[in-house]
């Protein structure tokens, strides 16, 4: 998960393909994100979460396939839909849940919540409630990494909706100019809130990067191996000083834009059940599970064991969050400025 060698470890048979142990790790990470978010979905529906959650269910292959190539000293910026990126980049599930529960043990001490989970010690510069805002932050971190010269890289995850913010073009420009070690990962899940993105997006998103002659690929975002491969190349390019790359991962948002969507929509619809069903058939976790069994890397028992491990971690995290102390209300005033000895 945090292999520093763009995924080519000792037990890899072929270059360009994750090793069996890596495949298992990719599987278990996707499953962890899935089960964690299903729990958030249920907790939210039961009215036990203070705020809203935007779930990543169905898109797990993107975060997991990309972050497999990153270490803690690499940077990532995320979106309002940030649980998957947080976990894939090595964030702690318990600290994330405590955060979403609004507890002092939360990774942001309850100050940020679901939309702002961040762990600077892991290079996770934060989920972000402002659509598109992560790109420039990632470019800044990539600039820092380039000045450091240690081969660290930055990744910015953003949605197809965010790809219509002008900051995309600005950051394609500056990162190309300065040869920044930056990987743009556009998670095209076909929606911007309730708006089918094709209604608000002209042309192909990937072409916007191609206009800068940036190395650009489009991948099946529900195929973790495809994402892993594309990201491996892009990250390697960044590490070796060859500048930015662009990945457009085609995927789908299975859940609503946020979890209480149905109350907001009050009957309004923006997609067909058949569409959801078709994408469920392409579920990235089930697909990898089948593949693991097919190639003999796993069997039903080992997959069940993974499931059990994940469920235990989720249960533990819920218990941790529930048992946490309430957030400290004095923190807001304390934290606005770093106190400086003058």
């Amino acid at each position: 998960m945090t292999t520093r060698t763009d995924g080519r470890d000792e037990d890899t048979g072929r270059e360009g393909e994750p090793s069996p142990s890596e495949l298992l790790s990719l599987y278990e990470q996707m499953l962890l994100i899935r089960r964690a978010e299903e729990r958030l979905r249920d907790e939210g529906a039961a009215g036990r979460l203070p705020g809203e959650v935007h779930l990543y269910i169905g898109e797990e292959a993107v975060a997991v396939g990309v972050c497999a190539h990153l270490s803690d000293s690499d940077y990532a910026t995320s979106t309002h839909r940030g649980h998957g990126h947080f976990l894939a980049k090595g964030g702690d599930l318990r600290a994330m849940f405590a955060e979403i529960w609004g507890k002092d043990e939360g990774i942001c001490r309850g100050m940020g919540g679901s939309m702002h989970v961040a762990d600077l010690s892991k290079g996770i510069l934060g989920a972000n409630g402002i659509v598109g805002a992560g790109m420039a932050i990632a470019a800044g971190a990539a600039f820092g990494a380039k000045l450091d010269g240690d081969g660290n890289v930055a990744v910015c995850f953003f949605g197809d909706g965010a790809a219509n913010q002008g900051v995309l073009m600005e950051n394609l420009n500056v990162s190309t100019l300065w040869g920044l070690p930056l990987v743009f990962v556009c998670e095209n899940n076909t929606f911007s809130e309730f708006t089918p993105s094709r209604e608000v997006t002209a042309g192909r998103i990937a072409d916007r990067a191609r206009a800068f002659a940036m190395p650009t690929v489009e991948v099946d975002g529900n195929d973790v191996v495809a994402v892993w491969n594309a990201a491996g190349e892009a990250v390697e390019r960044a590490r070796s000083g060859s500048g930015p790359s662009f990945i457009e991962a085609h995927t789908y948002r299975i859940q609503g834009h946020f979890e209480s969507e149905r109350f907001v929509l009050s009957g309004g619809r923006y997609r067909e059940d058949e569409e959801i069903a078709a994408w469920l058939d392409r579920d990235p976790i089930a697909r990898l599970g089948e593949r693991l069994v097919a190639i003999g890397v796993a069997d039903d028992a080992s997959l069940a064991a993974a499931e059990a491990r994940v469920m235990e971690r989720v249960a533990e995290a819920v218990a941790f969050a529930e048992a946490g102390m309430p957030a400290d209300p004095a923190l807001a005033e304390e934290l606005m400025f770093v106190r400086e000895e003058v």
Partner: protein
Amino acid sequence: MARRRLIQAVGDALAEEMRRDPKVIVYGEDVELSITGDTRGLHDMFGHDRIRNTPICEATLTGMAVGLAAAGYRVVVHMMFSNFFYTGMDAIGNQMSKLRLMTGGQVELPITVIAGYGGGAANAAQHSDSAYPMLLNLGGINVLTPSTPADAKGLLKTAIRGRNPSFFLEPSGRGGEIGEVPDGDHLVRLGVAAIRREGTDATIVAIGRMVKPALAAAESLAAQGVSAEVIDPRTLVPFDETTVLSSVEKTGRLVVVDEARERCGVASQIAAVVAEKGFASLKGPVRRVATPNVAIPYAPNAEAHVLPGAERITAAVLELVGAVRRLPA
């Protein structure tokens, strides 16, 4: 009279004005299905030329409003949350608020920007700002802060028919308050405050969503023998100085309650106006009850701690009146 939620009153105002004037155009992110609920159904009624979803690009949405208005349309831009004003701030600060002066008065910009604001729903820092003080500081922009469905409807209709840029701040929460809305073509003038409760010992000026806790405070103050007047300015630009100053003349005490942060905020602004123009009436210091100069935290207990509420208002008034006067037993 009809009982309507605030967002319904907003929707009614939009529908009526769109029906009344074919030059009224509404656009914004997700206005067709409407994530905040206030534009729901308009697309079915008026079609794609009159109301449409836009890409996510606030800098362009605010800039386009200027061009579309200059081309003779009445533009309503829905910006969802007031935090996104920052994203679209260039055209607000450098164009919308300045173009009329810069052109020597050649252009009128009938633009209405709608957005929800404020905290209370654990939406955290990037969705909970009350980002209007910066608008007041620009000049050239009306700022509307209705506290009731009736005012929401009446102010919005006036703004849409008006000839200047107006920002309509929606204290919507989960659909907003319910209240009676007058039938017919209900218009509310800009710049006329509403006295929500009469009183003699202290004046509480409360903005938008803060009117409710101010009234609750007044209620509990009454139980302690203190008579507080509650004034809802309804619009911050233009601002009804007369009503506020007359009230302070009567009461001699002023507490200003606003959900925006304190520093260079609306509470400071109103306090300064009274300290300058109503000083002779003041029996004691002015008091500001505002959000401290912090980003809004997520955890509900921490959020509640920073947002102004009835208790802080009550305490401020009691401090001003000097002592807790008790009702005769």
